[in-house]
């Protein structure tokens, strides 16, 4: 809707929930999920790397979650705190703004990705620096900040090991936690040998040696950096405290040594009180790296004279969150603490990897978050295919530390995709049946068979008719020992028994 303001200026839906801008195409790929997934499935090396990594992390997570006897209570508290945040988001943001400002920080607001990038570029320019060190942040990946800084003549150096691997190889991230999860050690060695000018040519693929190479490569940069850029894991409204959870110490370097720190956060990353962190600092590390606690968590409130950056800027960004918040159920997608547990347990992610999802938010949560952030723009929108990137097996819900009902959201987003399609097809009708049948597992199985029937009737070549719950159409047909007519769910049940 366009509104004429009466003075010759036009505006779009002023003050109404708005979808994300995506200037650098980080929220939407160029092809539908099934097409990208097909290619990924053919890449045996990729599948080996992912299989190894996700198996490792699943075992570690299970071990450390198992030793917490109040894990379910913590999950319920995490869910409750996040639901509370959604119900009070505008007020909590104003409170955060006041507490950060009172402690010497400067708060900026950004409607969308372009605005957030512009704010950061201007702030860096004011410092006179043409180089920044960055600690891994989904928010700045989402906005394409590195591209925006580059266009302004500012070099952005990623300092997280996996991000560095991705940046050096001109690749894109494929996982929240381990953006280079699709690379194995020998591929990483090759990238370092090729791209690090000062690297020891005798570098081996021993992980320890690779980590040391990264240390050497970045150390001088850290010690001389004047501007640091970070994201946020949790921002505490009542104390103005920002926290960053990490492993390597690159975060500490970026948060401590520069004169200026610029932190970009999606508005949903807020928690009401300091003591709420007692829930999330237990849930996050065990769910993400499968550790009792990650090596380093930094917290700071505004500016502290004599310690760390003496200029602190916090950028609060909407970029589509308001659109997600407007949906009573869909807003659960904003509860995500980016632990990646749902990626690691997802049978679809494990085989396709993150790139197939097109968006920087991959996996089960990405499949429900990305289409809500961007909105679905007509029947050919590739993000309309994301909610079908699932077998609805439910593993993601069980793993999610804040109990996001991802299967339910997937079904809802499928219905939304069908809406956007306009003209219903046989497949759409079957999809709708699957959605309503979700309440009953038995009826769901029947609906699944109906879908398969639909495919046998000759619609399988159509983008929107694959994968659906009968995911084996694109999945089992590769080197999985499944006949092409088997549904994903049937295949999965059988696989678990063998």
């Amino acid at each position, binding site marked *: 809707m366009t509104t004429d303001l009466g003075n010759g200026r036009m505006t779009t839906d*002023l*003050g109404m*929930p708005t979808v994300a801008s995506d200037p650098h195409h980080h929220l939407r790929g160029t092809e539908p999920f099934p097409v990208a997934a097909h290619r990924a499935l053919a890449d045996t090396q990729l599948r080996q790397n992912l299989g190894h*990594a996700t198996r*490792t992390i699943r075992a570690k997570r299970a071990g450390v979650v198992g030793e917490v006897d*109040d894990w379910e*209570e913590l999950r*319920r*508290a995490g869910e409750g705190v996040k*639901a509370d945040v959604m119900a*009070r988001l*505008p007020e909590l*943001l*104003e409170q955060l703004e006041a507490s950060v400002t009172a402690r010497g920080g400067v708060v*900026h*607001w950004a409607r969308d990705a372009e605005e957030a990038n512009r704010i950061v570029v201007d702030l860096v320019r004011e410092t006179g620096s043409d180089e920044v060190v960055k600690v891994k942040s989904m928010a700045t990946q989402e906005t394409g900040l590195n591209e925006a800084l580059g266009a302004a003549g500012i070099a952005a150096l990623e300092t997280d*090991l996996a991000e560095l691997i991705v940046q050096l190889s001109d690749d894109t991230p494929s996982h929240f936690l*381990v953006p*280079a999860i699709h690379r194995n*050690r020998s591929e990483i060695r090759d990238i370092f040998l090729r791209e690090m000018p000062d690297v020891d040519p005798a570098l081996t693929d021993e*992980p*320890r040696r690779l*980590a040391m190479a990264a240390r050497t490569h*970045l150390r001088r940069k*850290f*010690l001389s950096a004047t501007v640091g850029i970070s994201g946020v894991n949790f921002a505490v409204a009542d104390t103005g*405290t920002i926290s960053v959870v990490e*492993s*390597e*110490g*690159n975060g*500490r*370097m970026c*948060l401590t*040594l520069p004169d200026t720190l610029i932190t970009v956060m999606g*508005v949903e990353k807020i928690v009401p009180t*300091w*003591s709420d962190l*007692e829930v999330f*600092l*237990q849930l996050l*590390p065990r769910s993400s790296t499968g*550790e*009792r*606690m990650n090596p*380093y968590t*930094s*917290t*700071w409130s505004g500016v*502290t004279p*004599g*310690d*760390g950056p003496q200029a602190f800027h916090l950028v609060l960004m*909407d970029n589509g969150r*308001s*659109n*997600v*918040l*407007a949906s009573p159920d869909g*807003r659960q997608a904003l509860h995500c603490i980016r632990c990646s547990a749902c990626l690691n347990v997802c049978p679809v992610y494990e085989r396709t990897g993150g790139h197939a999802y097109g968006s920087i938010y991959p996996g089960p949560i990405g499949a429900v978050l990305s289409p809500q952030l961007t909105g679905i723009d007509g029947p050919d929108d590739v993000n309309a295919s994301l909610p079908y990137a699932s077998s609805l097996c439910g593993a993601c819900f069980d793993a999610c530390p804040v109990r996001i009902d991802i299967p339910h959201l997937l079904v809802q987003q499928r219905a939304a995709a069908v809406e956007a399609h306009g003209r219903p097809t046989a497949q759409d009708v079957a999809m709708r049946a699957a959605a309503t049948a979700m309440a009953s597992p038995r009826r769901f199985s029947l609906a699944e068979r109906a879908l398969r029937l639909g495919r046998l009737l000759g619609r399988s070549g159509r983008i929107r008719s694959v994968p659906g719950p009968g995911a084996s159409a694109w999945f089992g047909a590769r080197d999985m020992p499944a006949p092409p007519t088997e549904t994903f769910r049937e295949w999965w049940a059988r696989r678990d028994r063998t």
Partner: protein
Amino acid sequence: MTARDEVLARLRAARDAGGATPPDVPRGYRRTGAFAPGSAEVVARLDETLTDYRATVHRVADEDDVSEAVARVLEEAGATTFVAPPGLPARWVAAVTARVRPDEPPLSVAELDRVDAVVTGAAVAIADTGTFVLDALAPDQGRRAISLVPDHHVCVVRADAVVSSVPEALARLDPDGPLTFVSGPSATSDIELDRVEGVHGPRRLDVVLVGPM
């Protein structure tokens, strides 16, 4: 409309559309841990969890024994210099032969990079997770850079600072100043999800644990 007003207006409209009634947050999780703060059990558990994540733990019964333990640790590492935060108790380093570099006036980053080690206290330690927390406003812990740039960190943890659980620790901490939660030496899981110790933070971490043995 400023960006601030517009973002807040959008979020208000969205929040009202999606539901504005805050739920009751269920707080059925445990707020106190298995072992009493400062007890022999909690200290023993901290020893285990720290060791599990590759910190080297040195147990001493009494604060009078700290300085010998610190001296031994620095000597074994071949450290000839160490940084001391302004309020580091002198008795903790009385027996140390390595040369002290007081962070007063503050050392430059380049100077810190040339120092072999740093010795600090800790605000609180968490036995469940193998974590100690540094409070930059505490005189025996000091500003963040001094425990970050030197490659070897020796942290003295007294039993009265040891609690079982994360909630107990957060209740003791003041978020006004910068805090750093440390659980083992710097590590990465970025290569095939295996934990590899030693990236950008101190690669060597020794904890001198003072308390009932």
